[in-house]
């Protein structure tokens, strides 16, 4: 006889097989995709970049562990999402911030933005960006002291400078080109990341490398990054010039600030962006438009962070108004 007692059989609902995808696999893949940009931050900003990033990650993971323990929830720190929030926050900080800044930022990101809203899947805003916004508003000075990228040890006495976007805003494109020698060199330096800025945002090539990996794995799609970047490019070209419409330099805007980091790694955050692809295009366009609005007309030189956060508010609404393409949709016929 077949010896299998009834209580030994598992009964559950179909399907009985599952694909290999899991939340932690996705999260760790995104962490991996950020590795090139992280390495470039070490190269340009030295051990201090390592220290700031590790503080962010450590504080994020620790605060997730503590808040989940104290709320008597399952501890999910191994899924890589708190690690990712910490890593992204670190990459969004200036190199020379005092050491309490990464810790406060991570606590705000994880405890308030993520866990108090219900944890992964329920947060409305991108945790790392809320963390950064909180820091920028609370410590505006510390958060806007930029070190020169030196590929050398950066201590507390590191030479400070302005970011390319800051110079563009205050002194114009001419000054920026003058600083970098010529236009080609300016573009090249921006592309490789040899400029002042937040730790992980400067190297476009490294970020694109990571983004290509995520696109290849299917963890992100082109919809948000492309619509975001295209909108920034087009609007910068139309409105970004000093000598009238259609005289702006879209490349400067595309290659500088936190745009690449934001468009590929932060606006694409599953939880806080729309799920329907068509809606993601709307989301990306919105992000791009607000970014340019702030960069050209706002009080800050950079607008990516606020643009994404503002569009996060709209994500649920976009998801409700954009429908998927129903198979066999019955078209309204005139009678």
């Amino acid at each position, binding site marked *: 006889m*077949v010896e299998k007692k009834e209580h030994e*059989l*598992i*009964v559950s*609902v179909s399907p009985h097989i599952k694909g290999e995808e*899991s939340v932690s696999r996705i999260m760790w893949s995104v962490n991996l995709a950020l590795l090139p940009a992280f390495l470039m931050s070490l190269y340009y900003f030295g051990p201090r970049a390592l220290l700031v990033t590790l503080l962010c990650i450590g504080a994020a993971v620790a605060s997730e562990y503590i808040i989940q323990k104290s709320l008597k929830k399952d501890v999910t720190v191994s899924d890589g999402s708190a690690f990712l929030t910490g890593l992204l926050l670190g990459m969004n900080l200036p190199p020379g911030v005092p050491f309490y800044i990464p810790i406060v930022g991570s606590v705000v990101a994880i405890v308030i933005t993520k866990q108090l809203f219900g944890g992964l899947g329920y947060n409305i805003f991108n945790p790392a960006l809320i963390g950064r916004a909180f820091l920028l508003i609370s410590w505006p000075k510390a958060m806007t002291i930029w070190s020169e990228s030196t590929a050398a040890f950066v201590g507390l006495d590191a030479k400070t400078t302005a970011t390319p976007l800051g110079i563009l805003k205050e002194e114009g494109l001419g000054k920026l080109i003058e600083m970098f020698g010529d236009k080609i060199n300016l573009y090249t330096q921006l592309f490789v990341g040899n400029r002042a800025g937040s730790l992980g945002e400067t190297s476009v090539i490294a970020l694109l490398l990571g983004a290509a990996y995520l696109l290849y794995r299917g963890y992100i799609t082109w919809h948000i990054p492309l619509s975001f970047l295209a909108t920034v490019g087009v609007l910068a070209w139309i409105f970004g010039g000093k000598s009238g419409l259609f005289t702006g330099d879209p490349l400067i805007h595309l290659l500088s600030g936190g745009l690449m980091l934001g468009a590929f790694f932060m606006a694409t955050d599953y939880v806080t962006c729309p*799920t329907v692809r068509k809606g993601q295009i709307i989301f990306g366009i919105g992000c791009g438009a607000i970014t340019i609005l702030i960069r050209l007309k706002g009080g800050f030189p950079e607008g990516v962070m606020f643009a994404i956060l503002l569009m996060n508010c709209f994500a649920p609404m976009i998801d409700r108004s954009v*429908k998927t393409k129903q*198979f066999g949709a019955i078209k309204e016929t005139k009678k």
Partner: protein
Amino acid sequence: MLKLATFERGIHPEEVKELTEASPIVKAALPKRVVIPLSQHTGAPAKPEVVIGDLVKRNQLIGSGQGFVSASVHASISGKVIAIGSFPHPSGRMIQSIVIEGDGKDEEMSLKETPDYLNLSADEIKALIKDAGIVGLGGAAFPTNVKLSPPKEKPIDTVILNGAECEPYLTADHRLMLEQPEGIVAGLKIIMKTLGVTKGYIGIENNKPDAIEAMKKAVSSEESAYSLLPTPYSIEVYPLKVKYPQGAEKMLINAIKDREVPSRGLPMDVGVVVQNVGTAFAVYEAVRYGKPLIERIVTVTGRGIKEPKNMMVRIGTLMSELIEQCGGFTDGAVKVIAGGPMMGFAQWSLDIPVLKGTSGILVLTEKDYVSSEEYLPCIRCGNCIDICPMGLNPSMLSILSEKGRYEEAKEYNLFDCFECGSCAYVCPSNRPIVQFMRLAKSMVKP
């Protein structure tokens, strides 16, 4: 190479057909007893035509279909009716069934053959199919004679035979196409004649090139060139891309005819009737030889089975007997499924019979098994939206159902979902999305 026909979206799970695809169909041992449910089909249950103590022969009618959508059931072995009552059914429920204790003789009731079946009228063919208790063998088990009687306002111009067999592991249709291609083509022609249709297709996923060849050969061979159909008729063997759920009626029609069955509609709304290849063969045997549907091919497979096989099984045979004939379980077998891994039903007992619609018995091991007891909140990655063959938003639907907002779920076309399970397959949060769909469907009126 031409781009293969298919539908939009879908998934590609590991096929695991190599366990049985090269194994010829073997006859299962004569069962010692059979449990024949009166409801193995979509529609009203059959009414018992025997009482306890009756002696029955193979092929004998023991339950007759009542009402328009129903199907008769027949004795699959000779012996004595020892019980009529509620017995476990693969669906998980208890269903009125007739139990026959075999006498080991396998005596048969003689059948009425129709050698000149080519001259039968459509109504005569439908009557023969009805008498034989034939239902769709692909899984849903819809009575075949009903499917062949579309209302006048739904003209049919195309018949598609479904040989996609897109469920992983299963190879019953594959083997049938290799071993009985002429019979399948003959069945298709009978179906086409009944519907007055001149265009027939046989859709087969491209992972079965030998079946495609065999069916092509059968279609063009002299032997099966019956003068049954009005000329000019055409039958085309149609290779399809390997993608789940390619064998779903709506997806199959979409791939071959580029027509979309309207939401909540039926294939006949776009002029198509789809039949499984196994059903076509059963139709042929019923019309030509008068044979009722008392046996079918079952793939007994999975890494939890010692010797996976394709078996010709008498309807009502208990799964335990078949598993024993396949060498029993391997270490680590934990789950027994009636049907395929994507849409089959997990069984709580092995004393459950094979039905007309049971295409496989799949035994999964601890390694294959994925629990959906623990799942995470939806992280809204959108994977399920990207693959849903019906173009639904399973993410939103599962969240609405989880929150008890069933009426809202209806606005997201809840009832378009045919529970193929692709969404749950790709979900990184391991959410039991199919279960959420079923829950919501049960809570609101369609």
